[in-house]
C-alpha cells in the first residue's frame, strides 16, 4: 500500500497529467471548424480577394456530387439572403463574418461565425421545405431581424437546375420582395 510519505510525487504527476491532458487533447475550439488547415481571412477585404468575393457566394455543385456553399454574415443580414440546397446530398457550408460574431442553427448543426476565421460545417437536409433561420449571437440593434432562408428542394430539381448550365449563384441574387 502507498504510505502517506510517498504520495506527494504521485499527486504531482496526477494533477499535472490532468491539466496537461485538458490542454493537450481539448477539442472545444474544434466543434465547427475543420481540424486540418485553419482558414484565416481578412474580414475587411472579403469583397476584393479570396473565396468570399461576391461572384463566389452561393451554392455550387462539386465534381464528386456534393455541394459547397459560401456565405458571409454581417450586420444585420446573411449574404446571400436565401439559398436553395438539395435534400439528401451532403452540403459543405463555409461561412465567415465581415464584422462581429454571429451564429445560427441549420439542419441540426450549430454554426458559429467569427470574423477572421472560416467556419466549415457539413450537413444534409432530410426533407424538403423552407427553413427560416435566425441569428442566435447578439450582434447589435438589428440582431432581432437577422434571418436567412434555406430552401431545401428535392435532389432532382436541384440537379436539373445546376447541371443545365444555369449558375446556382444567380438564384441567390433574387430579392425576396419580388416573390
Amino acid at each position, binding site marked *: 500500500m502507498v504510505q502517506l510519505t*510517498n504520495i506527494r510525487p504521485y499527486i*504531482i504527476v496526477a494533477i*499535472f497529467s490532468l491539466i496537461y491532458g485538458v490542454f493537450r487533447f481539448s477539442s472545444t475550439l474544434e466543434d465547427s471548424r475543420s481540424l486540418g488547415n485553419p482558414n*484565416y481571412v481578412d474580414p475587411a*477585404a472579403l469583397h476584393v480577394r479570396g473565396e468570399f468575393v461576391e*461572384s463566389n457566394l452561393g451554392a455550387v455543385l462539386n465534381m464528386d456530387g456534393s455541394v459547397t456553399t459560401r456565405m458571409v454574415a*454581417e450586420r444585420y443580414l446573411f449574404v446571400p439572403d436565401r439559398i436553395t440546397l438539395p435534400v439528401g446530398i451532403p452540403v459543405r457550408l463555409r461561412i465567415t463574418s465581415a464584422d462581429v460574431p454571429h451564429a445560427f442553427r441549420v439542419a441540426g448543426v450549430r454554426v458559429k461565425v467569427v470574423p477572421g476565421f472560416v467556419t466549415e460545417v457539413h450537413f444534409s437536409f432530410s426533407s424538403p421545405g423552407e427553413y427560416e433561420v435566425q441569428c442566435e449571437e447578439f450582434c447589435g440593434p438589428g440582431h432581432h431581424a*437577422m*434571418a436567412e432562408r434555406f430552401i431545401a428542394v428535392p435532389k432532382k430539381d436541384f440537379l436539373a437546375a445546376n447541371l443545365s448550365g444555369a449558375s446556382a449563384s444567380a438564384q441567390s441574387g433574387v430579392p425576396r420582395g419580388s416573390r
Partner: protein
Amino acid sequence: MDPARSSIGVRGAVLICIAIVVFSELLGLPMLRRTKERETFPVESPAVPGAPSLVVWNESTILAASDGNPVRGQFIARRCETCHGIEGFSSRSSTPNLAGLGREYVWKQLDDFRSGKRKSEIMQRIASALSSPDSADVAAYFSMLPSTPDAQFNPSFPQNMQDRSLANVARRMLSVGDPSRGIPPCEACHGPIGYVRAAPGLGSQNSDYVLSQLDDFASKNRSDDIDLPMRTIAGQMHENEREAVAEFYGAGLGRFTVGYSIGK
C-alpha cells in the same frame, strides 16, 4: 523496503511529467493551434474585377478617411456649392444633402466615384480632380456642418410627406424592420440607435435622393455597398416601403429615434 528510498520523489515526478509531454509531442496528437501558426493576411493584391468597391477598411484607410482638415476642406468645397448648396443642403430634392454626413462615408463615395465603382458621369469627373487627402478634407468639412438647414439659402429639405398614411409603414421599417423577411431596421445601421462603418446618416437627406438610391440598390444599378447589405435589403423592400421610408426621411422625421407602437 525503506519507504524513503522506494519513493520516486519530487524529482522523479517532474521527470515523469516531462516524459508525458515529450511522449505526446512525439505522437503528434492534436493540439490547440498556436497563434504563431496564424498566417499573415496576404499583401495587397489587385482586387477582383467584380469587386463592389476598391475601398478596404483597414487601419490606413480608416486613418486616411477620417483625418482630414476641415478648414482646407471648406476651401475645396466651394466648388460643391452649385449643386449641393452653400451649407451642404441642396435646393433640389434629387441631389443629396452633404451636411452632417460621416467622414468615412463621404471619403469612400468620392473614392467610388473616382474608380467608377459608383456610376455618375458628373461626380466621376469631379472626384477625379480630388486626391485622397483632398477627399478627406472635404469629408471633414461636410461632417462638421449643422444638420439643420438655414431657410434663407433655399434648401429643399425638409419636404412635406405627400402621403401621410405611409408614415406608419416608414416608422415600422425604421425602428423594427421586418424580421420575417430578414430586413433590419434602418436605424440599426444609419442611426440614431446604431451605426455601422460608412453607413450614411439619413436624418437630413432629401426624399427623392433616398428613393433613387434605394431603387438603384434594388435594381443593382448601384453596387458599391461592401458585402451587399443595401442591395439585399432594398431588394427585399416592397416599392411602397421604399417610397414611405424616403418620404419619411425627407420630411425630417427620421432625425431622432423613431418609436413604433402597434395598434395606434
